[in-house]
């Protein structure tokens, strides 16, 4: 029997006598972090109590899919036994950094919500799925989750209202995205050699450069905090442009025909049992839909059809106007 797919956007509400939490989960991995005493551990405690004693716990949990809490005891067996659930893991669980956990989470038909401040380098998670909790000042009871990195144009570390005309452009790696942006920005464009090397590349640059860093937002979650902290502490003039992925830009540009709904409501299409991340999903869609067309796509080597003046213009329309090309 095949594995059931896990798609969708799920709102979770957890209520006790003193607190109420609201959280929406729409991808396979969500990370919760932030300041101490914002209620992260209390949320886990309430969910654990509900899972153990149900309504007898006194905790009210509203969710369209089952919720489980997994700690360090028998985590592998438990995770493998769950299907189409949302699994919460507290920061006290040391297995989250293991390769065994990474293997289990990839292409798994559950969603995972992981409380942890450390970057989880072995996992691919989105910049936009890193949340903190905010307490309502009126009541001190309602804990609403907010996205730590949430900008309309996926453009970070840029003063509102300003723009950037980069003297240097850094991409994560030397794949198709680099080839395209090198066409767009010419010799200003350099590759970092992998997402974990992005900060090293920033550190090599002269402080006077105006830098544009282009990363795949759908999978850069483990590195974004380090990048932002570095930029903040070095007062570097660097904007971070983090669209979901280069493939997402090409899909939006319309080289192949895909439904607008799929791009805007990807949570209803990107089955976490089949795809490691939304970047993985967009790549798969682009490869499939461009087969047999002049825009046949490969992640490793960019088809020259994407480098024509007309094609470049199409993609440029998807890039935020604050980035001066």
């Amino acid at each position, binding site marked *: 029997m095949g594995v059931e797919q896990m798609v969708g956007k799920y709102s979770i509400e957890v209520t006790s006598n003193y607190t109420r939490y609201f959280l929406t989960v729409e991808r396979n991995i969500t990370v919760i972090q932030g300041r*101490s*005493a914002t209620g992260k*551990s209390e949320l886990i405690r309430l969910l654990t109590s509900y899972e153990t004693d149900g309504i007898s716990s006194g905790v009210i949990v509203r969710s369209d899919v089952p919720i489980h809490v997994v700690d360090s005891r028998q985590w592998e067996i438990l995770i493998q036994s769950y299907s189409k659930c949302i699994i919460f893991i507290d920061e006290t669980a040391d297995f989250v950094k293991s390769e065994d956990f990474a293997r289990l989470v990839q292409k798994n038909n559950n969603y995972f919500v992981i409380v*942890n*401040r450390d970057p989880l380098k072995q996992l691919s998670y989105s910049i936009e799925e890193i949340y903190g909790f905010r307490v309502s000042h009126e009541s001190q009871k309602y804990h609403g989750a907010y996205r730590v990195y949430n900008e309309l144009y996926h453009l970070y570390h840029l003063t509102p209202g300003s723009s950037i005309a980069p003297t240097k452009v850094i991409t994560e790696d030397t794949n198709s995205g680099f080839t395209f942006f090198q066409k767009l920005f010419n010799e200003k464009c350099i590759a970092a050699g992998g997402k974990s090397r992005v900060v090293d590349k920033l*550190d090599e640059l002269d402080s006077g450069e105006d830098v544009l860093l282009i990363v795949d937002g759908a999978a850069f979650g483990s590195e974004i905090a380090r990048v932002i902290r*570095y930029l903040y502490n070095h007062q570097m003039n660097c904007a971070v442009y983090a669209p979901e992925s280069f493939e997402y830009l090409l899909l939006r540009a319309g080289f192949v025909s895909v439904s607008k709904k799929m791009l805007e409501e990807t949570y209803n299409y990107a089955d976490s049992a089949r795809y490691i991340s939304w970047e993985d999903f967009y790549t798969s869609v682009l490869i499939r839909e461009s087969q047999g067309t002049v825009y046949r796509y490969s992640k490793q080597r960019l088809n020259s059809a994407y480098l024509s003046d007309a094609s470049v213009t199409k993609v440029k329309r998807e890039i935020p106007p604050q980035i001066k090309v």
Partner: protein
Amino acid sequence: MLSIYFGEPQTETYIYNPDAFFNNRHMADWLTEPLSVEMIRDVDKSEVVGPNLIQSPFLGPIPPERLSGGVKTLIMIDHDGEHLFNASACGDNCAKWLLVIGDEKDRTVRLGYIMDFGRDKFDIRIENTNKIVHSMTEMTEEIVRKHLL
């Protein structure tokens, strides 16, 4: 002085889960000490009523076990110099208290992320490289250039 080990330490004294360690090892009278009272007030926005009772504006009257993981970790660091505590259990709002503790005692903690110690000058020894840094700029440079995280 405060010393920080960045990364994954390989020592038997490393306490990955300071929350659990606090629950089973703290002494009741630690909570009524002036520094503990201040930290609990600042981080948890709560008032210590007695050694086993704290009044929280979010959770009502609670025992010490229901304090935040961050403040529990701070209290353990303040009282226990024998273990290496995982300060990733602490958010940025605990950073100033780590500096306060480090002003009075020699303590080494572990961090897996770049905690924000603020804009004021400080003295922190990076355990991995034995370098003393005085600002976040120096700290992030040391972490990046020596690939500590």
